[in-house]
């Protein structure tokens, strides 16, 4: 079970059970929908963007523990950040979960998002972890068509 505990860390299980910012966001001026056809995960991200800063953010949807916890932790991490800061966080997160950063990858700058470091041992679950982030990017870029991980 040890590698499973690496994947399903306590903070992930907690955010899966009690996701933060898990609601529709009234007054959002950016929104996008993401879909993972492989497992049916669906997420909608709402953003209130003001002066290039994510003033508020929330999400709705259904999915596995990894995608739900990822969306929850993402919203908590990017709230108050500028677009560029959120983008930088996404790149660091992406590097960590895909293992591109190598074994020596320093997740220090990622804060609680470091809980997803175990995902790199489960390549087919990378899409679950990154779906909310791709959806957030689509929202920030004002894209209309739903995001798909395929």
């Amino acid at each position, binding site marked *: *079970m040890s590698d499973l505990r690496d994947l399903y860390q306590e903070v992930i*299980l907690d955010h899966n059970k009690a996701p933060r910012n898990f609601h529709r966001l009234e007054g959002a001026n950016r929104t996008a929908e993401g879909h993972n056809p492989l497992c*049916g995960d*669906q997420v909608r991200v709402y953003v209130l963007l003001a002066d290039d800063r994510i003033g508020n953010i929330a999400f709705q949807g259904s999915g*596995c523990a*990894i995608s739900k916890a990822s969306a929850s932790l993402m919203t908590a991490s990017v709230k108050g950040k500028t677009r560029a800061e959120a983008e930088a966080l996404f790149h660091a997160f992406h590097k960590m979960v895909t293992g591109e950063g190598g074994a020596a990858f320093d997740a220090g700058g990622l804060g609680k998002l470091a809980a997803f470091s175990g995902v790199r041992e489960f390549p087919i679950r990378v899409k679950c972890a990154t779906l909310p982030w791709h959806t957030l990017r689509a929202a920030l870029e004002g894209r209309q068509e739903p995001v798909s991980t395929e």
Partner: protein
Amino acid sequence: MTSAGRTSATPIRRDSPPGFDVEKIREDFPILRVMAHGKPLVYLDNAATSQKPQVVIDRLREYYRAENANIHRGIHYLSERATEAYEDARAAVARFLNAAEPREIVFVRSTTEAINLVAQSYARPRLQPGDEVVISAMEHHSNIVPWQIVCEQTGAILRVVPINDAGELVLAEYERLLGPRTKFVAMVHVSNALGTVTPVRRIVELAHSRGVPVLLDGAQAAPRLPVDVRALDCDFYAFSGHKAYGPTGIGALYGKASLLEAMPPYQGGGDMILSVTFEKTLYNVIPFKFEAGTPHISGGIGLGAAVDYVSGIGLERIAAYEGDLLAYATDALAAIPGVRLIGTAKEKVGVLSFVLEGVHAHDVGTILDREGIAIRTGHHCAMPVMQRFGVPATARASLAFYNTRAEIDALAAAMHKVRELFG
């Protein structure tokens, strides 16, 4: 059954019904000795694809080692041998389905291709705007989308027979939907997502009483139940090789000879013609009219070996063994708190779709995988079925006759680990 057996005071615990030596059968499947994540492989994803017995693997190897040549045109020794092997395989598939003649068997890539062939070559020229095609609410996408396409092309309308909460076809609704505009019925024989066996005999009877032809999607039924196309009297029957212990990339379409003969070709090319000039091409006879281009020769031959292997064991015995294992697995899963089975039809075969309260199917799949247990999670290419039961996805364990009660015990134990991890 002897009287001694009936009066025996201490029942003997056995792993399989009498006369079915599952351990011996497992020896036929070399892949079952593979370790997955350091655990013995428990392969319960048979509805996605089945494993291959050694005889099929050997047959493919032998074909490429000693028989490989193009077929139906060579003048040389090897070509004759390859042609004979390919046509023998067609005859084996005809026997497997109890077709009247081998020429009623068209080799295709898959069930999907077979259905597309019938939709385009049989249905499309006959459908008028306002005509109706009837399918069920538990079809695989491969028996939905080809009909949506042909409806779009012709202006015909797709009608869907509903299913009840157990996942059974509502026969009265089917009967009601069969009307003067119904021109075709395409129905699943065994649901890949629910395991339901549909009342195919009655389905065909009711359609025929109104002069409507029927295609049955046998992708899940052909490996699990005896199929007799003449007794069913269906007009078309489709199945895939790889779910029936044969190779991928090959499948078969059965069609009544009179219907196949009246149909235009599906694809044009070599092998499907008698003569070609730029003014006029004469098409070949059936089944070759539908087999344009060099076919999947080794696949066809491998499929022949697979259906002979399965028939050698006997579909009745396979169905009985798998039925026993299904009952055992149903009890084992039902005993796990929070598990809900999706698909509880009275007539059912070895497919167990389930959800675990509070845990997404995808997470169940990952945890089981680490225990060496292969199941499928997701919508199983049957999204309307998921919508019908109000779930985004299910976990699905699907059985084959090489699975054992010990493997079901391993599944149940792993499910307890899932619950433990997710608290």
